[in-house]
Structures are given as structure tokens and as C-alpha cells.
């Protein structure tokens, strides 16, 4: 116990120092009570407001891209490679071009030879420039070979069939273990380029490679009483948003290419399309309508470049609507990974060392390859706050699979499955209850997090999340299992999770708030509401600052011409980064309103009070309503009542959560039923508790799909077998349990009204919690996803 006391002393000193520093920096950490009392005074924030677009959505109004793009748009489709690795030797489009209605057919000879990445990331992107719009070297089954545009789908389909292509088929690399230093190079080309040093080397099939750590892991592991080792394998998963990828383009009055896309990242699309087409960015404008789900898929420029190229070349409006089959076979699923974990602890249960190595398959192109993998270690190792040493190394390799991309959780999901599974097995080896083991070792508020850019953990209710989850599910009564006496066994499993709130020092969000003529406000942002409700959430923040009803804030997003810059809605950043910009921009507007009111009443500014619907000057016994101020701002006015703020954050405060599951497993068949799933989340202040809850429930359902059956399968030749929603099963409402979600909120001092993120973390607990419950029921530790009933049955034989 000496060892534990010593460590606790270290941590106490660390916390005290960080608390002092936070106070000195004007961002004091809050206790649970302080946070609750701050929230109690909020009127619009922390309220379950209805989404501003909700009624349009539930009544089926034409608010999505293809609802409003008519038949004047050319239909754009691409011919796709049937080979996993091949060179296009000859391509004959003569007969295809003669099909009536066909407007244009384009091949690699027609497109710029300037490589780019489709990953929607801040410039300079960490993903390598390894793409062309069309490349004579095709690198996966489904890689585009030719673009066909025509008046309607029929003629385009006929033309696609008439294109004759000769390929020189090359050997394919289809096993990620064999990719590094394979003699077959996925990207042998000389103009391949990595803009940022991430350990990429195209002559070794390496998209990224790095080593990191603190302390001597080998030495500490050697000192540990118990060490658990495991090799965990997670599959590629499809985001499977209900609206497939789609983009429509047209030329406007000014000769500019207008790209209307179902995208999370309008500004990145602008930059990427301009580079792909080799035209100035000022020639490209990007907007969006409602987005039918994204989950990260639409953080990559999947469909955009093809219709953009067609419209730029032909001058005619064009659109590309991905089929579900294309979505399943030529898109950007989660990176398949193999994660090796070694975790060591003292006999008393102090977790002293974590050693993690991740091998990630980025597929044919490097979209999000160097970045997703970083979260494997960062978001898993950091959960444990009493380590003496850790190591996190990774290799990201090119193969001839379809390119991977961004999917909710973004590497954290893979890492947390591995690390949490290893910790559960460690608990068993130590003979310590896995909840207790976590209570002893979890990261605490106030601690610095060495494996998390050494950021201070300024808001953390992970301990409360654990206590509440344990109580909700009845852990002490149910752990580990109960034989039901009918061949079935009931068991429970647990996992913790964290994520970030933005990419620190990188993600940038802006807001422009202006007073409108009738005394209401308009909020312009460049973030993208993909169903999450961020338009409403951001408006709630503005309404809280401006002390007005939510209805008085209108939202305009997102348009590269009229919105202020935003890196986009990804990396769990919108509420935290853009939300802070909104808070500050609304604050500016408030100050400007006071200034205008001071002019109007000829009053000293400091004596005025902003009351939401009016500004009062009690000393002068005068007041002016916001409507009067708004009127005055339109007549002989020189004062712009516009707030404009751009924000970025030097930290990425992690949300935390605990997930606990109860299952019933049939030992004869391996069939598994989820009886209960409790999730207790600390996302700081939930700006909109309804939306935070539904985010959690939706993330849990996706996590369950990933844990139990979702799997992007391919044949030995690299063809995707799970090419429809029949072969790739996503959970139906018959497959998910009744979720029970609660919030145990910390208060993040750097976030808007104490908020952190919610969107991604919620997918991280189901896989490890289910694997744990299954182990408790069967005695078998499954280390490869998905854990199908068949695998469970085989495992028990």
C-alpha cells in the first residue's frame, strides 16, 4: 500500500498546482456543486429545446439536396475499377460517347496531374497528397476510371457499359500485415507528397509511422506483479448514414463554380475542389442544405470532385448521387486496426504501465490515416491516471482496400476497445472487481495528462459517472454473471471512454451575430448541422448571452461566401470551438447594443443595464427597447451592431463516460440478447439535454452494431462483399436494448457555459463492455470484432 500512497501524494500535489494555475489564468476549475449552481441560472442553455429545423424534417419538407435539384442537372456517374491494383493501359470511350444524351466522358488524360487529399482537414493536411480525380493507376476495386455525364440515368448507365478498358493487372496487397516494405508499392508515383512529417514513406507503403511515450515501459512492466497482453482486431465499419454521398454543381452569374454538397466541411471542400481542378479557390463557392447524417463520412470529399469537374468543363449543372452500393464499396469507412496492448499493475491494483502498438490500414489512399491512429493511444491510455510509464507506437499502411476515413470515434473507438478489454482481463487476473480497479486508477479532475499533450484535466466527473452507472445497473448484485438454469446465463460488462473536444491549436470556428431590423438576431456560422442539432445548440448559446427567447435567433449555415470561416463539424469541435465563438460574438453585440442605447438616451455607458428585451438606465429613469435600438440602427446610423469572433483552443477538454451492459447469452447457440445498457456521460454542460441524450443513444446503437455484427468484408481479390444494407447489417429497432442515459456533468471552464463535446465519445463503450459481458458469461475473451453469435459458439467449444 506504500506504493499507492506515494502515488496519491504525487497526484495530490499535481492537482493543487494545476488548480492554482487555472485560477491564476482566470479559468478556475469548478466543483460539482459550483457547476450545478451555474447551470441552475441558465435559461436557454441546458434546456431541451426543439431543433429549429425539426418540424420541416418530420413533415418531409424539401430540405435535402436532391429534393431541390431538378432534372436540368446532368447525371454524373463513374466507371469503377474491377481490379484491386492495375494500370489502365487503354480506355476507349468512342462508342459510349455516341449514346444519345451523353454530355461528356472524361478519363485520366483529361484531369489535372496535381495530387490532393480528399480528407477534410485544416491545411496543411496531415493526410498525404496521393489522389488524382482520375488516375491511370487504380488501387482498389471501385477506384474511379472514367467520369460519365449525361441527361439522365439511363443514357449514363448505357454509356458506362460501352466503355472498353484494358488493364495491366498488378499484384495486390490485401493484408495489412504484409503491407509495410512490400515489393508491391501502392503509391510508387514521384508526385506523391506528405506535407507534414508524420513518418510517411510511399516507397515503404507507409502513410504514417510514429513512436511516443513517457518513462521506461519495459522496465516498469518488468517490475509489475501482473501483466496482461492482448492483440485486438477491429474491422472497417461503414458510417451508413441514411443519405448517401451527393453533390450538385452549377456555374453562377459571376462565372464561379457553385458546389452544393451534403458535407460537414464546406470550407475544406472549397480548398480541395480548387486544388483538384487546379483553379483558384475564389472560383469555388460551397454551400449545403440539410445533411442526412454524416458521422464523419462527410468529412471527406467523396463525391464532390466528379460533378465539380463536369460542371467546370461543360458549364452545365450536374449532380452525383452515390448509390448505397457505392457508399458501401467506394467510400471512407473506419480504419481496420490491430492494436497490441500490454498493461501491467501492482498486486494491489495500481495500473503502472501501458504499452500500445497500433497497425492501421488506410487502404488505397491516406485520408485521415496519420490522424485517426493518434487517438488510439491518446484517448485510451489517458483514462488511467496513475501510470509510471506508457508507450504508444504506430504504423499506418497503404493496402489495396478502399480508402478508410473518418468515422465517429476516429481511432479512439479502436484504442478503447483494446485498452478497456485488456484492463478488464487484468481485473480478472488480479481478482479485483473491474469497477473497483477503475475507481482506483481513473484519471481525476485537476491532473495533468502526460499522454494527452500534457493538458490539465480541468473538468472531469468520470468518478461520478462510474458511481451512477454502477448504481443504475445494479453492478454489485449482477457482476460477473448469473446462471439462469435454462442454458442461459446473464452477465454484465463495463467500459470507460473519453474523446476530445476539438483538435487543439488547429480547429477554428467563427460566428457573426448581427442585430436585425425587428430586434431579433441573425447568427452566421460555417459549421454544418448534419442532424446533430448544432444550428439550434449554437443559437441557444447566443440566446443565453442575449437574454432572449431562442425563436429570436435565426441561423445561417453554411456558405463559404457568407459564413465566417469554420474548419467544419468534426473532431467533436462544434459546440466547444464554434460555440465559444458564438458566446463571444453575442457578447460583442450586447456591448454594441449598450453603446447604441447610450447614444440614444445620452446616458453614460457604464450606468446602462442590458435586460434582453430592452436597455434600462435607472439613474436617468429611461429605457429603450431592443426594437427601438434596431430601428435606430437602420436610420442615419454609423455603428455596426455586428459581433464577429474567430476562436481556436489550445486545449481539447475530454468528455468522459461509463457504459455498462447486461446481456443474456444462450450457451447452446451463442445467441446474445442485450437486456440493458446504461450510459452515464460527462460532456460538461449539456447545452441541449434532449439532443445530448439522443446523440448518446444513437452512438450506443452504432457501437453495438460495430461490436456484434458490422464488418466491411472483402473477397480474396479485394471486392467488397458487404455491398448493401442486406449484407452489411446495421442495427434495427429490434436489435437494440432500451438505453438508459444519464448525465453527470462537470463544468469545463474554457467551454461555452461549461460545455464539452458529446458527438463521438458515445460510440466507444459498447465494444469493450460487450466483450467483457461475453467473457463473464462464457469465460472466453474475444479480441476480434465483430463478436458474432457464431464466434461465441465456436469460442465456447
Amino acid at each position: 500500500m506504500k506504493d499507492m500512497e506515494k502515488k496519491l501524494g504525487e497526484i495530490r500535489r499535481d492537482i493543487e498546482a494545476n488548480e492554482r494555475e487555472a485560477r491564476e489564468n482566470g479559468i478556475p476549475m469548478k466543483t460539482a456543486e459550483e457547476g450545478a449552481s451555474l447551470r441552475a441560472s441558465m435559461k436557454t442553455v441546458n434546456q431541451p429545446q426543439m431543433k429549429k429545423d425539426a418540424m420541416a424534417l418530420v413533415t418531409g419538407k424539401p430540405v435535402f439536396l436532391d429534393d431541390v435539384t431538378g432534372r436540368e442537372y446532368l447525371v454524373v456517374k463513374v466507371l469503377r475499377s474491377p481490379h484491386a491494383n492495375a494500370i489502365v493501359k487503354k480506355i476507349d470511350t468512342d462508342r459510349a460517347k455516341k449514346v444519345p444524351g451523353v454530355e461528356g466522358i472524361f478519363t485520366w488524360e483529361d484531369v489535372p496531374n496535381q495530387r490532393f487529399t480528399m480528407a477534410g482537414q485544416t491545411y496543411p493536411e496531415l493526410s498525404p497528397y496521393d489522389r488524382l480525380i482520375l488516375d491511370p493507376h487504380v488501387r482498389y476495386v471501385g477506384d474511379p476510371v472514367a467520369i460519365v455525364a449525361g441527361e439522365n440515368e439511363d443514357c449514363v448507365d448505357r454509356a458506362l457499359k460501352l466503355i472498353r478498358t484494358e488493364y495491366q493487372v498488378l499484384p495486390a496487397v490485401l493484408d495489412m500485415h504484409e503491407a509495410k516494405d512490400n515489393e508491391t508499392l501502392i503509391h510508387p508515383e514521384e508526385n506523391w507528397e506528405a506535407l507534414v512529417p508524420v513518418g510517411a514513406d510511399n516507397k515503404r507503403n507507409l502513410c504514417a509511422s510514429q513512436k511516443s511515450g513517457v518513462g521506461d515501459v519495459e522496465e516498469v512492466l518488468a517490475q509489475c506483479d501482473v501483466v496482461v497482453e492482448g492483440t485486438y482486431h477491429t474491422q472497417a465499419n461503414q458510417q451508413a448514414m441514411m443519405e448517401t454521398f451527393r453533390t450538385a454543381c452549377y456555374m453562377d452569374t459571376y462565372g464561379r463554380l457553385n458546389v452544393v454538397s451534403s458535407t460537414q466541411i464546406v470550407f475544406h471542400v472549397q480548398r480541395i475542389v480548387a486544388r483538384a481542378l487546379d483553379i483558384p479557390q475564389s472560383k469555388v463557392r460551397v454551400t449545403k442544405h440539410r445533411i442526412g447524417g454524416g458521422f464523419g463520412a462527410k468529412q471527406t470529399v467523396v463525391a464532390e470532385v466528379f460533378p465539380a469537374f463536369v460542371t467546370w468543363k461543360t458549364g452545365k449543372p450536374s449532380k452525383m448521387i452515390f448509390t448505397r452500393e457505392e457508399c458501401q464499396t467506394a467510400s471512407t469507412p473506419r480504419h481496420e486496426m490491430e492494436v497490441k496492448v500490454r498493461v501491467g499493475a501492482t498486486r494491489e491494483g495500481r495500473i503502472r504501465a501501458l504499452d500500445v502498438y497500433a497497425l492501421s490500414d488506410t487502404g488505397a489512399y491516406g485520408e485521415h490515416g496519420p490522424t485517426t491512429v493518434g487517438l488510439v493511444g491518446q484517448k485510451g491510455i489517458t483514462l488511467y491516471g496513475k501510470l509510471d510509464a506508457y508507450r504508444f507506437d504506430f504504423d499506418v499502411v497503404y493496402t489495396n482496400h478502399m480508402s478508410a476515413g473518418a468515422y465517429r470515434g476516429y481511432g479512439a473507438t479502436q484504442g478503447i476497445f483494446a485498452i478497456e478489454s485488456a484492463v478488464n482481463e487484468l481485473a480478472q487476473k488480479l481478482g479485483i472487481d473491474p469497477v473497483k480497479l477503475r475507481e482506483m486508477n481513473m484519471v481525476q479532475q485537476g491532473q495533468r495528462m502526460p499522454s494527452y499533450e500534457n493538458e490539465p484535466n480541468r473538468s472531469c466527473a468520470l468518478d461520478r459517472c462510474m458511481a451512477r452507472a454502477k448504481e443504475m445497473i445494479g453492478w454489485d448484485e449482477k457482476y460477473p454473471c448469473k446462471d439462469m438454469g435454462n442454458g442461459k446465463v446473464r452477465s454484465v460488462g463495463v467500459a470507460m471512454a473519453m474523446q476530445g473536444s476539438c483538435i487543439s491549436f488547429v480547429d477554428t470556428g467563427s460566428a457573426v451575430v448581427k442585430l436585425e431590423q425587428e430586434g431579433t438576431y441573425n447568427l452566421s456560422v460555417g459549421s454544418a448541422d448534419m442532424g446533430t442539432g448544432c444550428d439550434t445548440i449554437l443559437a441557444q448559446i447566443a440566446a443565453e448571452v442575449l437574454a432572449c427567447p431562442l425563436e429570436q435567433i435565426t441561423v445561417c449555415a453554411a456558405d463559404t461566401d457568407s459564413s465566417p470561416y469554420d474548419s467544419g463539424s468534426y473532431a467533436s469541435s462544434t459546440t466547444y470551438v464554434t460555440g465559444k465563438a458564438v458566446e463571444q460574438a453575442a457578447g460583442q453585440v450586447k456591448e454594441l447594443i449598450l453603446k447604441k442605447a447610450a447614444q440614444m438616451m445620452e446616458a453614460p455607458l457604464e450606468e446602462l443595464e442590458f435586460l434582453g428585451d430592452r436597455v434600462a438606465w435607472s439613474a436617468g429613469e429611461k429605457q429603450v427597447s431592443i426594437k427601438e435600438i434596431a430601428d435606430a440602427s437602420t436610420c442615419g446610423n454609423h455603428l455596426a451592431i455586428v459581433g464577429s469572433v474567430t476562436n481556436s483552443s489550445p486545449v481539447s477538454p475530454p468528455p468522459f463516460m461509463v457504459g455498462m451492459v447486461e446481456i443474456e447469452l444462450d450457451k447452446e447457440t451463442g445467441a446474445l440478447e442485450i437486456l440493458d445498457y446504461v450510459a452515464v456521460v460527462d460532456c460538461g454542460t449539456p447545452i441541449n439535454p434532449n439532443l445530448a441524450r439522443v446523440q448518446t443513444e444513437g452512438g450506443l446503437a452504432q457501437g453495438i452494431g460495430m461490436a456484434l455484427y458490422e464488418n466491411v468484408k472483402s473477397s480474396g481479390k479485394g471486392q467488397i462483399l458487404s455491398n448493401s444494407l442486406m449484407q452489411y447489417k446495421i442495427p434495427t429497432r429490434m436489435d437494440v436494448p432500451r438505453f438508459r442515459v444519464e448525465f453527470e456533468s462537470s463544468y469545463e471552464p474554457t467551454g461555452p457555459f461549461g460545455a464539452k463535446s458529446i458527438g463521438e465519445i458515445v460510440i466507444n463503450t459498447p465494444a469493450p463492455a460487450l466483450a467483457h459481458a461475453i467473457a463473464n458469461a462464457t469465460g472466453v475473451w474475444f479480441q476480434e470484432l465483430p463478436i458474432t453469435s457464431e464466434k461465441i459458439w465456436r469460442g465456447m467449444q
Partner: protein
Amino acid sequence: MKIALILNGKNVEAEVDDGMTLYDFVRLKGCTSVKCGCETSNCGLCTVFLDDVPVLSCSVLAARAAGRRVDTLEGLQEEAEEFGAFIAGQGAEQCGFCNPGMIMNAIALFREKTDPTDEEIQEYLAGNLCRCSGYEGQMRGIRNFIAYKKEKALSGERQKDGSMGKSRETDGAQRLQGDEQAKEAGKQEGGAGI
């Protein structure tokens, strides 16, 4: 071939290709609430009523609808608003892309059964996929709607004036009252019809 049918209460005559699906036909006629999510007849997004029976319009030929009644959400705006407000009251509409198909099926369910059990609801809507919500919020909305309808049936036409203008909380204890307000809010924010 030429077909005549009643689409959302209006007589429609049209020349269609033999192979045209009912899905393509209704969208061509401006019923864009009808969505496609899968092409393999298993997402439920394209659900329409054919003589009041919910069908997957992607799997029915337009020609099959000749001489029959076809209804989409465009023709069921009142019911969609009334029920949809309860889904929206939970934030469970999320991206909204799957909503019209699910709401069509839910309307069919409510017409068939005024007081379905949870199991009946799950089974009836099993063919309506949703990737955003995890279904739980939809279930809460459906249950609240059923409770609201039951209470409404019991107490006759509710006095609506009393619930106007208050805050729009829709959680916990105030669920029923909140949803009544959400419904009212829905009427205000629903926008004009097509």
C-alpha cells in the same frame, strides 16, 4: 404506358415507362419527402400508402398503382405535424432523412391500433432503419404521442389556449404538457406546405 391514379387526393394521369418504380414516379410528381436509402428494399425510407396500405415504393412498379390511391407524407401533413412534433419533442428526428418513411408507417400503425404495446410498435416499425437516433428517442416520442391521444380522447377537445406562450420544456415530469406545447410550436415553425 399511360396510368391514372389518385395521388394525395388529386387525380393524376401520366405517361410512364413500364419499368418505372412508384418511388421514381412520386418523386417526379414532386413528392420529395419519399426518400431512398438502400436500393435493396430494407431501409423503409420510401414507404408510401397504396390504398392505405404501407408499401415500399422502390419495390412497386408505378404501373401497379394505376387506378389506385397513393398517399405520401405530402398528403398527410396534419397527421405528420401532430405526430412529428412528438418525435421532435425528443430531438429524435436528428438528420430527418428517415423520418418521412418512419412517420408514414407510424401513421399506419396508429390507424390500425390506438393503443399498441411496445413490442407491437417495435415490430410494426422494424423495417424503418435509422442510423442517428438509436431508436430510443423515437420510442419515447411514440409513447408520449399515444398517451396524448388517449388523454385527448378522454377529455374531448383540449383547451389549447392555456398552454401557449410558456417555456417549451419537454422532459421528465412535464412530458405530456411539454409535448402539447411542442405540438403547438410545431404549428408555428412548420412552415408552409408544398
